[in-house]
C-alpha cells in the first residue's frame, strides 16, 4: 500500500448545468482497498459525480483528487491507473470477446506476452471459455457484464469505477459479479460503485447516500443504519397489506398516530417511529377498526432499504 491511503478525495465538488445544480458541494473520501458504494435515486447526480472523477466533466466548483492526482489538472496521468465500466455500453457489440479484450489491452499498452496471459485469465474469470470468438452482442447480459469488468481490469488498475454495473442483470449473475469484486478487493484494488440495489449496498465497506446532488449520509452500512434511522421499524403482516398502508397513513395524517413512515414490503408493512413498540396496540386498533386483521407484529433491525426510504423522504 502506498503512503497516501485515500484513493479519492472530493472537496466541495459541484456541477451546475445552467440553473440546474446536479451535484451540490459534496465531500467524501474513498480509502484504498475498499468497496465504496454510491447510492441514490435516478437523477441524484451519481453519474455526474463519476464523470467528474474521470475527468470527463469539469467541476463548476470544488476539487477532486484521484490516486493523489488532481483530476482537472492532469487527467492523462490518472487514466492509465484507473478502470471504468459504464452503465451498459463499455464493449463493442460487433467485436468478438477476444477482439474486445485485445483492444482494451493494447489501448492500455499491455505488452503482447503479458496480454495473452491476462486475456486467458480474463476469459476464465468471466467464465467465457470456449466463447472467445463469440460476438459480444450474442452474449447474455450477465456474461457481458463480467466480460466488461474483466476488460476494465485488464491493465490492472489501482482503482475501478463501476457505474450501475449490474443494472438489468439476474440475481445469480449479480452474485457472481460481486464475487469477482471481492476477489479484486482482496488483491488491493479499490472499487467505486454506484447502484440502486440495496442488497448490493449492504456488501459495500462504506456507503455514500446522495439525493438531489447533496450528500445525505456517509459511513459503513451499520453506521448509516444506526445514525440515519429516526426510530425503530415495526414489521406487520396484515390480512390486507394495501388497505393497511392506507389506513395507517390516514391515521398519521389525522394526527392519531405519531409515526414517521409507513411503507409496503411485499406482503408486509414497515412502520417507522421512535419507540414504535409503545404504539403497537394503537396500530392494531386502527387496523381492526378498518376490518383489517393486524396479524403478527415484531420490531426488527432496519434494513438499508428502510434507511434509504426514510432518508429520501
Amino acid at each position: 500500500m502506498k503512503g497516501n491511503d485515500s484513493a479519492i478525495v472530493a472537496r466541495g465538488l459541484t456541477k451546475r448545468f445552467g440553473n440546474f445544480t446536479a451535484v451540490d458541494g459534496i465531500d467524501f473520501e474513498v480509502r484504498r482497498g475498499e468497496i465504496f458504494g454510491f447510492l441514490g435515486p435516478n437523477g441524484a447526480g451519481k453519474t455526474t459525480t463519476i464523470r467528474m472523477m474521470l475527468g470527463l466533466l469539469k467541476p463548476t466548483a470544488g476539487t477532486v483528487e484521484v490516486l493523489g492526482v488532481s483530476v482537472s489538472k492532469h487527467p492523462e496521468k490518472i487514466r492509465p491507473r484507473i478502470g471504468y465500466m459504464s452503465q451498459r455500453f463499455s464493449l463493442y457489440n460487433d467485436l468478438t470477446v477476444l477482439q474486445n479484450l485485445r483492444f482494451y489491452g493494447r489501448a492500455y499498452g499491455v505488452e503482447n506476452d503479458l496480454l495473452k496471459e491476462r486475456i486467458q485469465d480474463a476469459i476464465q474469470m468471466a467464465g467465457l471459455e470456449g466463447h472467445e470468438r463469440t460476438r459480444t452482442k450474442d452474449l447474455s447480459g450477465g456474461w457481458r457484464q463480467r466480460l466488461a469488468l474483466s476488460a476494465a481490469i485488464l491493465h490492472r488498475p489501482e482503482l475501478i469505477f463501476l457505474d450501475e454495473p449490474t443494472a438489468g442483470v439476474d440475481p445469480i449473475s449479480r452474485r457472481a459479479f460481486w464475487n469477482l469484486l471481492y476477489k479484486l478487493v482482496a488483491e488491493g484494488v479499490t472499487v467505486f460503485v454506484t447502484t440502486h440495489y440495496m442488497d448490493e449496498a449492504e456488501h459495500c465497506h462504506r456507503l455514500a447516500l446522495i439525493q438531489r446532488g447533496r450528500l445525505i449520509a456517509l459511513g459503513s452500512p451499520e453506521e448509516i443504519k444506526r445514525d440515519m434511522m429516526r426510530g425503530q421499524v415495526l414489521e406487520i403482516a396484515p390480512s390486507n397489506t394495501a388497505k393497511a398502508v392506507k389506513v395507517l397513513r390516514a391515521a398519521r395524517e389525522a394526527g392519531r398516530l405519531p409515526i414517521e413512515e409507513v411503507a409496503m414490503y411485499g406482503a408486509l408493512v414497515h412502520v417507522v417511529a421512535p419507540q414504535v413498540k409503545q404504539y403497537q396496540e394503537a396500530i392494531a386498533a386502527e387496523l381492526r377498526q378498518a376490518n383489517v386483521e393486524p396479524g403478527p407484529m415484531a420490531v426488527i433491525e432496519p434494513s438499508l432499504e428502510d434507511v434509504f426510504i426514510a432518508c429520501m423522504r
Partner: protein
Amino acid sequence: MFKRIWSLAAKEFLHLLHDWWMPSFMLFGGVIELLAVGWATSRPMTNLPLMVLDQDRSAASRAIVTALENTGTFAFEAQAPNMAAVQDALDRSKVNAAVIIPPGFDSKLASPTGRPSLAVLLNGAESTPATAALRAVTGAVREMGQRIALRRLGLDADEFAGFDASLRVWFNEALNEAFYTTPAELGLMLEFTTLLFAALSFSRERELGTLEQLLVMPFSSLEIIIGKSIPTILVAFSDFVLMLGAVHFVFGIPVRGSLILLLALAFGYLLVELSKGLVISVVSRSQHQAFLLVMMVGMTDFMFTGYAAPVESMPRVMQIVANVVPAHHWLTILRGILLKGAGLDVLWPNILALAVLGLVIGTFSLRYVRRALD
C-alpha cells in the same frame, strides 16, 4: 503513442470487417454510380420523341419532318390530329418536341416572295433534351433556309460560298457528355465518401455509448483523431483510385496531365473533407443526424462545383462564395488534369486556394474536435 493509435485503427478495421455493408458501399457504391452516369450520358442525345401536326400535308411538309429525323436527335413518334393532342402529349411528357406545319407551307415555300413559317414546341421542363432539340431544329431549319435561298438565287450549291464558322471543340472533341459528367461525379463521390465516413466515426460511438469508454482510456485526443482517421483515409483513397480506373478504362476518360499530381491533390483534398466530416461527427448526437448533415453540406457544395450550372453564370455573390468551397477548386483541378492535361503552372491558383482552405478548415477542425473530446 503509435501502438495506441494502431490499437484504435485496428479496432476500426475490425468494425469494417464485421459490418461488410458499409465499406462495400464506400468502395463500390461510387464505382457503380459512376458507371451508371457514364453509360447514361456517354452518347449524344438521340431519339427524342417528336410529334408532328401537319396541317399542310405536302411534299415540303414531309421533307421538313425527314430533315428533322435525319439530324438523329429526333425519332418520329406520331402524327397529331389536332392542337389538343399536341398539348396533351407535351403535358404528359410523351414527346420532347412537336412541329406544327401550318396550311400553305408548301405553296409559300414555292413562291418567290413567300415567307414560310413553322412552329416548334419544346418541353422546357427537361432542359437538357430541350437544348439538344433546339440545336437540332435550328440547324435543320437553317440548312433548309439556305437551300431555298440558293434556289431562289438560281445558284448551285457548289457555286455558293457562304459564311460559316469553323467550329472545333477542344478537350472533348466528340462533345461526349460523359467527358463532362463522369469527372465531376468522380470528384463529388470522393467528397461524399470521405465526408460520410468521417462523419460516422464519432457519431457512431456516441450513439452506441462507447465514446465515453474511449475517452477514459489513456488516448490523447490527437491519438483518437488519428486512429479514427486512418481507416477513413485508406477507404476513401482506394475508392478514388477504383473510380478513376473505372472512368478511364470503361469510358476512356483520359488522364492527360500528371497522374502523380492528381493522386497527390486527391489525397490533399480528401484531408480537407475529412476535417469537415470530423466536425460534423462530433456535432452530431447520432449517426442519423450525422448523415443528414452530410447530405446538407454535400448538396450545398454540389451547387458551387459548377456541375449543375456553370459558376460563371451564377449571381456575383454566389461566385464569390464558390471560391471558399473546396469542392469547387477540386473539380476545376480534376477536370484540368484529366481533360486538359494542365499542370501546376496552370492550376496553381486553385491548388493554392485549396491549400489555404484546407489549412483553415483543418486547423479549425482539429481544435474543435480536440476540444469536444477533452
